[in-house]
């Protein structure tokens, strides 16, 4: 019985609840054949974080994936997943890359 409760608690706490902090989108191009995406995240304990530098990683990934092209229709999602005493902050971005 105790084991069952422990498993249930683990399932509830480790599955995580997600907060959607912000979301934005830019103008979508006519040509939408090449969708690229990037995700950057960081973990923290009890919400103690000292910088937001992980956001830049998502931009670098997008820049890398669309070299020499035009990235449009960028959908940016900023979310926080809450686990037991631990939080995961994520920026998920996607967009359409068109090479000229």
């Amino acid at each position, binding site marked *: 019985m105790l084991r069952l409760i422990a498993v249930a608690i683990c399932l509830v706490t480790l599955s995580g609840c997600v907060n959607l902090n912000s979301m934005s989108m*830019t103008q979508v191009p006519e040509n939408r054949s090449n969708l690229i995406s990037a995700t950057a995240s960081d973990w923290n304990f009890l919400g103690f974080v000292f910088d937001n530098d992980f956001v830049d990683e998502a931009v670098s990934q997008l820049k890398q994936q669309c070299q020499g092209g035009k990235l449009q229709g960028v959908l940016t999602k*900023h979310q926080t997943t809450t686990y037991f005493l631990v939080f995961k*902050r994520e920026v998920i971005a996607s967009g359409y890359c068109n090479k000229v």
Partner: protein
Amino acid sequence: MYKLLLIGVSALLLGACARLDHVQIGDLDQTQGNLQPISVKVSQFGIELAAFAEVGRHTASSSAARSQSQQVRDLLALMNMGPRTGNPVYNETYAEKVLEDLYRQCPSGNITGIRSIREARAYTAVSGEIVRIDAFCVQ
């Protein structure tokens, strides 16, 4: 031991936690030339007065003073209730000049890949409410 604990807690509280409220990534054009990163950051002092009143309540010596601090705290909390991002600031126009600052860093005006970031440095009851605009200047 008590002193050590106090120093540990102070270091943790004064270390300034970063808060991230909003991220927006704009269109990125890499067809026109080399990109040079540019950045503009403006901030304003934010304060949570109710938290100060709460500290006053805990440190008050008499029960009458504690009661008064509690009333002040409740009043301040009611005045500031409602949806908000971060601590209240006294100058709501602090982020209006970011575009001019961006153009100053990129005189050609050819700016791409604009990222709008709303963040803060939080020191318990006070904070630096920050608006940061990162972008690329096309060379």
